């Protein structure tokens, strides 16, 4: 597996897209810090952009990569290597290169602006962890989609829809439901619905650090318990770990049965 991972990673480093991705985040975070001159607002802007861009890039770039390396996969499959090994190797190669690109692009400007000694360091680390997890989750979705269908157009369609669903449509339906049922206690519902979407989950993880003052403004026992103690971070982290495994395990199952 490590060998496949290594080749996959080297393959990525030869791609100019990954460098563009790094450069994009470098420029974005540098520009935001330069314009705001304030770490806190830089961080909130970066949060918004990362939660939008990272899943998109991971899923689109991932699907593209898996479709393009199909021939290489076929070649590997002819060797006496286990299928899961090949797939896992490629998955980790993709997601770790994307994560590295993201980390590199953001760490440099933020460190230059002194994030390490500032009081938002923990929030910043939380953001990085959340976004890296999202990258892994959406790369997992990418490999899953490329295994489900061999039709590229269909695959891209699926991945764009999935991204759109997770980032916009889901929250829209969620908000609508909250509005329609505003007469009922919706605390447990809203927390569990948030847990069911990895993008929302990542957002909540960061909000637990950034917006805790306003989150505790709501008079509800469940919210207060969730946001006011370590329970919130515990539950969200455990769910995020579950989300990390879910697409990968599904892809392995599909990959095992697939007729290449």
């Amino acid at each position, binding site marked *: 597996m490590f060998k496949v991972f290594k080749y996959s990673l080297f393959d990525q480093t030869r791609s100019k897209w990954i460098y563009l991705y790094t450069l994009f985040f470098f420029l974005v975070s540098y520009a935001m810090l330069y314009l*705001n001159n*304030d770490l*806190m*607002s830089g961080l*909130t802007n970066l*949060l*918004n952009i990362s*939660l*939008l861009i990272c899943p998109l890039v991971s899923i689109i770039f991932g699907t593209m990569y898996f479709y393009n390396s199909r021939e290489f996969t076929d070649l590997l499959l002819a060797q006496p290597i286990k299928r899961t090994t090949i797939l896992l190797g490629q998955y980790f190669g993709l997601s770790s290169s994307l994560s590295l690109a993201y980390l590199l692009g953001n760490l440099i400007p933020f460190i230059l602006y002194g994030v390490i000694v500032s009081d938002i360091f923990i929030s910043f680390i939380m953001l990085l962890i959340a976004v890296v997890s999202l990258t892994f989750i959406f790369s997992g979705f990418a490999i899953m989609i490329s295994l489900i269908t061999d039709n590229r157009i269909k695959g891209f369609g699926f991945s764009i829809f999935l991204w759109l669903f997770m*980032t*916009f449509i889901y*929250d*829209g339906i*969620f*908000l609508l439901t*909250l*509005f329609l049922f*505003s007469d009922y206690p*919706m*605390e447990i*519902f*809203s*927390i569990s619905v*948030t847990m069911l979407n990895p993008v*929302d989950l990542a*957002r*909540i993880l960061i*909000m637990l650090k950034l*917006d*805790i*003052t*306003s*989150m*505790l*403004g*709501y*008079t*509800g026992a469940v*919210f*207060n318990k969730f946001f006011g103690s370590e329970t919130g971070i515990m539950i969200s982290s455990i769910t995020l770990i579950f989300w990390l495994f879910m697409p990968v395990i599904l892809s392995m199952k599909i990959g095992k049965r697939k007729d290449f």
Partner: protein
Amino acid sequence: MNLCKYIKLFVLLILFSQLQSKTLTVGQNQMFSDLKTAVKIAVDYDTIIVFSGYYKLNKLNINKPLTILGKNNPILDATNKSELIVINSDSVTLKGFTLQNIPNNFTEDWAAIRLNKSRYCLIEDNHIYNSFFGIYLNRSLNCMIKHNKIIGKAKKEFDAGNAIHLWYSDNALIENNYAGKHRDGIYLEFTKNSRIVFNTSENNLRYGLHFMFCDNNVYKKNIFRFNGAGVAVMFSKNVNMHSNVFSDNIGSSSYGLLLKDIVDSKITKNIIKNNTIGIHADGASRCFIKNNEFSKNGWAIRILGSSVNDTIFENNFFSNSFDISTNSTFNKNYYINNYWSKYTGYDLDKDGIGDIPYRPVKLFSYITANSKESLILLRSFFVTLIEFAESISPIFTPQNLIDNYPLMNPVKCWK
């Protein structure tokens, strides 16, 4: 000529020395062994010096003008039996004591130091620990409370007293005190023309500072933090709040500063940070909010429809979850020349003022008011999207709640 002047002065001095008061001492190997007898024997305007040591004492009434000084912090202990010092006379000075262990008493509101209808008193440099009420002024005019440290034992709001409590006590000066772990740090009711300066009030169960029916007061350069519900200023007019710090008041009904029926007041150069609600204005009218810094609050200002003719001018709003929120679709206040860290406009003519107006009320604050649970969707893209749509054509948010001249750079006025 000169000589004549000197002789006059000399005669005056001799006369004054006749008037000079006596000094009594209390302590081991001193004139008196306990304070009570010393107070009993002393005549008006005498000075009593209490040397360091531990004195058990219960309810000491002071009915004549005396100066009572503690040397090296003598401890007066009520041993949880009664209240400690009750001053019933004008011009009493009490300085340099440690007073402790006053039990709760709900019918009489026992305090470590109580002043009943006494004027011109000075309470200075005292440490008060473990007391029900700390310093209690009842109809006592023109008093000074300075450099006291008052730390209570409050655990529940209903059985706790206030650190400094003023009732109908005009013209007071409360300076440089520390009040902690009481119900209210500093409590004023029907107290006019007072100054509250350089105090620190923290870890109190209810309010750091609580004002009721107190006109023409000034409070400045105080620090109020980690209190249950922040600072409340109610039913008063002409209050001047200047250079205070309101911070870390977090909770569902917690405010940095609560304004309830306040008229003609000034709120200037305060730092308001890390509160659930920075300023909650309910019925605040003709107030002037200028040069304040609002940072990292949940809601920087929540201004209800009952507040009219307020001016919010040259303030800095940094990284608040919500800058302004309101429950009304009308706006009768003025927002001008503020710096909003969320402002995304441009300044083509480089005059430091953004070319497009800023709408500080977001649609999402309207949504959260209607369905509180939606707070969990804060910073979601869907919300950003509908907020963007709302900002182009406002329907739910007040149309004229707008800062037409937002600043491009923060106002600098604290350093």
